[in-house]
Each structure stands twice: as C-alpha cells, then as structure tokens.
C-alpha cells in the first residue's frame, strides 16, 4: 500500500478579498459578579476556501467570538460594545433580525461540539435537514428530501434514504456529527464555523470527520473557522492560526510559521506542555498557575502572572523596573511594564503578530490587522483507507 505522502495539489489562487472580516470586536456580559469581557479587541480575516483556526483553552473567548459572528449571543446579558463583523462587505451587526436569519444557515453555518444536544430528539434527521433546505432554498418538500438525502450521502452515511427517517438517538456519536455537518452544508454556506467539531469523538472517528471536512472544502470552496484546543488538529487542518488567551488574540500567523517560530511565551508554553507521540519525554513542561477567570483578570498583560519570560527577565532587571506579584500561592518578581501595560497584537515579523512587550522588536512594530490570505499548497496527510483501489483513485484525482 503506497501513496505519495503530502501530494501536491493545485489549490485555487488565494483570493484577495476577505470573506469575513472581524474588526476590533469587544463583547461584554453582565453577570452577578459584575461585567466581564469575554472578547476584547479581536480582529480576524477569513478568505474564501481558507481554514482559520482559533486556538485557546476554556474561557479564552474563542466560542463567544464564533457565536457573535452568527449573532447568537443572548442580549442581554451580552452586548457588543464596539467593532464590526462584515461578510462580503455587509456588516452583520447592522442587519435586522430577519436578514440575519437569512445569513444563518445559508451564508454561514455552524457545527457544535456536542452532536447529541445540538440535534432535536423529537424530529427525524430528515425533518431537521429539510427544514433548513425549505427555508433557504425555496424548494418543495420532495426536492428538499432529495437534497437532504444527497447531503447525507456526501458526508459518507450509508443507506441515506432509510437514515432520513431515523431519530438522533438511533445513531452513534460519529454518525450524529456527520448529520450535523450534512445539515450545515446542505445549503452550501460560504463559511462554516466548526466549534470543536471532533472533541467529543474518538480519534479514528475524528480522523474520518476531519478528512470529510477537508474533502468538502476542496469541492465546495467554503471557508472554515475552526475552533479547537487541540494543537494536532490545528497543525493538520489550518492555514492560518490565531491563539487566544484571556479574551484576546495574543498571536497570529500562518500555520507553519506559528509552529516553527512561536513567539508569545504562552504559545511556546502550550506547545511544550503537550505530550507528543513517540517523543518519550521524561517530564512535561508546564505553564504554572491556572487559566484566569474573566471576572478577575490580572492587570497589565493578562499572562504576566504565569509567564516564565517576565520572571526570567525580572531576575536580571533593576529593582525599579520590577514589581512583586502573588500568584498561585507563590511570590515572585515580574517586569513592571508587564504588570501595568497590556501589550497589543503587533506585527513583530512580516505576517506574524504577537502581543508581548518582551519580544525583540515589539516597540518598533506596528499594530497588526490580521489579514493573512495564506493557503497551504499541500494536502496535510495522505490517507490510506485500506482499500487499495481507493488509494490509487485518490492519487490520480486532480483536486
């Protein structure tokens, strides 16, 4: 069984006009403990056919950012303080609810992490897919059923006619996630927002689903916003990566650049703390402390209480440039600037943004407006599915 690893494929030329542009988005929520800010100054661009990954840990704001694009944030308690979200040049924040409903499902579709709770248990799979089709494509019931059947076939569900009449509980987790994808793609959206699409699935099923998304993206040319915490999933699927920490993007670059030269101490720490298959490391590197709660973010740089770099530099700096902080029951010194001033995302290298005062060249750099149109030219992983014929076919197929 052989296949050319990393088959070079002729991808369409990167488009020069962004499909989605998020600019300086700020979102607040009123809670019992006061106002929290789950999204702060977030800017993102996604180009047609591109996959942009938003990476971060729980509570970093990645899902809220995604929800806000579809305007699914409940208001109140949520509110958009400032910023714009434009799709094909139309500001989604200015649309009325009726127009917005046309965008949801038609132009932008979303798949969620939990396929069990995202499907309605009292309707059949067919009814749920057809609802969106009838709504957005103005077709009759019979035609809608055909479209739904084809959608199930496209996501690799065997015997789609019969499956259309089944209920969600009759299906496995992987199957339900396929149904979610079929539903999302039935109206051929321009942008798919995939919020942790494979986190609840087993690895072999995850591999199937991600392969499916890549295939559908190649065929339909849709853009994907991939929200995940799994660096492996990012490495294999994203063209451009934005790393979020404490409601902000702290680093942004194309995927190879980010993995080869991570600049922000948080990104570096994240990469080091993940065990890698076959590495046989004796001990894992850790990031001390815990992810900060949005109700009580630290002052200055939100990472300074966990940052190894500022501690290291503080040890060498003069006492007047440092301050003592207490974090995780520990006392240590950090640089004063990190403690009082929050860094902004700046282009510290061409097409590579990071938000850290201590990176060489930060002070000389300009604020980054993420607009990276990069696309990979290589299919990340060659796939063998055990069927020798399929492997040969896949190699020959011009994509």
């Amino acid at each position, binding site marked *: 069984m052989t296949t050319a690893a990393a088959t070079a494929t002729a991808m369409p030329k990167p488009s020069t006009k962004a499909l989605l542009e998020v600019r300086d988005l700020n979102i607040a929520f009123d809670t019992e403990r006061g106002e929290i800010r789950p999204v702060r100054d977030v800017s993102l661009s996604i180009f047609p056919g591109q996959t942009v990954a938003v990476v971060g840990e729980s509570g970093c704001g990645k899902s809220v950012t995604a929800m806000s694009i579809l305007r699914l944030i409940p208001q109140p308690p949520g509110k958009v303080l400032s910023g714009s979200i434009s799709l094909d040049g139309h500001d989604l924040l200015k649309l009325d609810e009726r127009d917005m409903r046309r965008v949801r499902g038609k132009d932008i579709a979303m798949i969620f992490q939990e396929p069990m709770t995202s499907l309605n248990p009292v309707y059949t799979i067919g009814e749920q897919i057809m609802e969106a089709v009838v709504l957005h494509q103005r077709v009759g019931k019979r035609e809608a059923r055909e479209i739904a059947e084809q959608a199930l076939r496209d996501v690799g569900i065997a015997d789609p006619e019969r499956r259309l009449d089944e209920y969600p509980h009759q299906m496995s987790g992987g199957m339900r996630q396929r149904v979610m994808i079929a539903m999302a793609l039935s109206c051929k959206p321009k942008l798919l927002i995939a919020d942790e699409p494979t986190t609840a699935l087993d690895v072999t099923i995850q591999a199937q689903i991600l392969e499916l998304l890549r295939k559908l993206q190649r065929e339909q040319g849709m853009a994907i916003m991939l929200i995940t915490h799994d*660096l*492996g999933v990012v490495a294999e699927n994203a063209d451009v990566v934005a790393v979020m920490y404490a409601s902000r993007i702290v680093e942004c670059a194309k995927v190879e650049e980010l993995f080869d030269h991570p600049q922000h101490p948080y990104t570096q720490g994240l990469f080091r703390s993940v*065990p890698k298959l076959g590495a*046989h490391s004796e001990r*894992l590197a850790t990031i001390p402390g815990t992810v900060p*709660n949005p109700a009580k973010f630290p002052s200055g740089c939100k990472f300074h209480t966990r940052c190894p770099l500022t501690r290291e530099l503080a040890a060498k700096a003069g006492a007047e440039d440092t301050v003592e902080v207490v974090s995780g029951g520990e006392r240590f010194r950090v640089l004063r600037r990190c403690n009082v001033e929050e860094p902004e995302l700046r282009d510290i290298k061409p097409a590579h943004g990071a938000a850290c005062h201590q990176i060489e060249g930060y002070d000389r750099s300009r604020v980054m407006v993420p607009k990276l149109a990069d696309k990979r030219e290589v299919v990340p992983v060659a796939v063998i599915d*055990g069927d020798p014929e399929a492997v040969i076919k896949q190699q020959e197929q011009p994509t």
Partner: protein
Amino acid sequence: MSESAPTVPYASAPVKNDGRDPLPAGAPLVEVRDLKTHFPIRKGVLARTVGFVKAVDGVSFTIAPGKTLGLVGESGCGKTTVGRTILRLIPKTSGEVIYRGRDFFAYQGETLRRLRRHMQIVFQDPVSSLNPRMTIGNIIGEPIEVHGIAKGKAKRDMVAGLLQRVGLDPSYALRYPHEFSGGQRQRIGIARALALGPDFIVCDEPVSALDVSIQSQILNLLDDLQRERNIAYLFIAHNLAVVEHFSDEVAVMYLGRIVEKASSRELYANPKHPYTMALLSAVPEPNPRPKRQRIVLKGEVPSPSKPPTGCPFHPRCPLTRQAAAEAGAGDTVEITSGGERIRVLSKCKNEMPPLEQKQGEDGHVAACWVTK
C-alpha cells in the same frame, strides 16, 4: 505551583494490621486473569435476559509495584469497566484479580474493607466526583476517619499535608468544590485517593476534562507521587500521546478484549495489530508538515452486544482485505461492511485470533491472524 516536599507529615499513621499480605519479591502487585464482565440485556414486561453486552471479555494483564499500565481504546471498548471491575465497583462475571498473591474477589466483610484502602480510583470528571455539599477537608478526611487512621487534629493535619502535597493551599480544607477550577478539583480528587496510602490507583481518564496547560501539571504530579510512594497505576485514557508519555506498558482494547500489549516504547515504534496502527496514525500530530500516512478506518466500532464473529476487528481491518486480495479465492469470503461488499480472509471471519508473541520485543503480544 509548589510541588516541593511537604512540611506537614502526610504519611498515613502505621496501622498494625492493614490487611495486606506481604508481596513476594518479583511478584506482580496486581494480576488480572481472564476477567469477564457481561451486562444482561433485559427486554419485555418480565425483564427476561435476552442477551449480554460483553463489556469485558477475557482480559488478562499484570502490573508490577510502582509501575504503570496504560489501557487505551475508543469509547465503548470496555476500558473503564475493566478498571471498575478490578476494584469491585461492578461485579465480575468470571475471572480473577490477584492482589498481592491472593484473589481479591475472595475477600469479604471486614478484611475486604481493610484492603480497599490500598486500591483507589481517580475519576475523569472532577466536577461530579466531588460531593458539592462537603468541604474539601471532609471529602479528603472522611476516608481517613472511616478507616480509623486518624481523628480530630491528627486527621486535619493529614488533610493539610495531603493538600500541600498536591499543590494546594492547606487553608482550602474549609472551602467547597464549586470554588475550584477543574485542575484544582482534580488535585483534590488525587488527594482523596492518596489519603489512605494506597499502592494501587486506577486513574480513569484523569486529564481528559482538563485544559492543555493544566493536563501536564496533573500528569507531572501523578508521576512524582508514583516515584515517591511506589504506587502502581492502571492508567485508562483514550489520548494515545498521553498514555505513551505516562505508561511503562500499554494495552490496547477493542470490543472488550486486549488486542495488543507491549512496552510503551515498543508499541509506538513497532505496532503489530492493524487496529493499533490505525489508532496511532489517527492521532493528529502537532506538526504542520506531518510525514506519516494515515489509515482512516471505515465504519464504526460495532456494538458489543453483537460483536462480529471470529476476529472482532475483521469488518474494518485493512490488513485482512489486503491479504484477501493476494490469497486464493478458497481462503477468502465476501462480507458486507458499512454498506460495502469486501473480501476478507476466511480465518479472520471465523476464528478468534489468540493474543500471542509477535516479532519484536519479548512480551510484545497481539491478537491477529495476518500480522507476523
């Protein structure tokens, strides 16, 4: 995060008769022999048993003192049931669990209760596994008191020592679980498991619910505790990279059985079972230019209530298909898998392969008719 030596004595007070048998030199601490756990499927008004889900169907392994056996597999493969059956949280159907040379299932009453001290469990979900109405001090202190190890001030000192050891402030003893983050709650769960001074802990997906930056903290803590106290772990997880990092030996389960077992290094460098190969290749690498090829398995894990005949993996197995393509028609048979008609080796369809030594390191066993 302080992971330095504690200043408060945490060791359990010496108990005269702690119920344990001495461990003969070189003997495994825990030995599991042909363990089976079958759950009845009941139907109808009379709830008659119409069949069995063979969640665990003939699992054997040993764990040496202070060592870690990793148990990996996908959801529904029976890995969690193995861990719980060993601890007698679920009744077994047949088989033996030998702890320190004696059958753990043979113990009853008071002797069993005394022995339970030494075998503990850390759960996956640190939210639902801590009683929300109890303070941290009571959660950790209760087993200490129930087992008659310490009371009052001595108990509180032990709790403080345990908290400190797992990297938490001793003052947290007066707080409630909801006041803590996921990683902190998992530390509390570990402190509770440690309270009775066990020498065997079942860790059931201890880090899967945690953030990436917190996972490595917990793994390092478990690692330190093992070195310090010579604790053996049965480490159950679905994340292969975590299991490889953490385990001395790894067993791969599929549909209630172990299909391959080897030292951690050997298994990842030289996998023999096609399921292990697929599982390993499916893990996305944190590298944007991966060199590996990926085997994407077709279909899904079959239901353990009606597993396929012969080798349970044959309907999804790429190796048997390939072998069938090269073999004579007399040795192959056509089957339907995932709506597709494929040819597989007759032997794979009809006979269960034994777990046997394969080419490679001594002790590298796999259950497959095709692989060498």
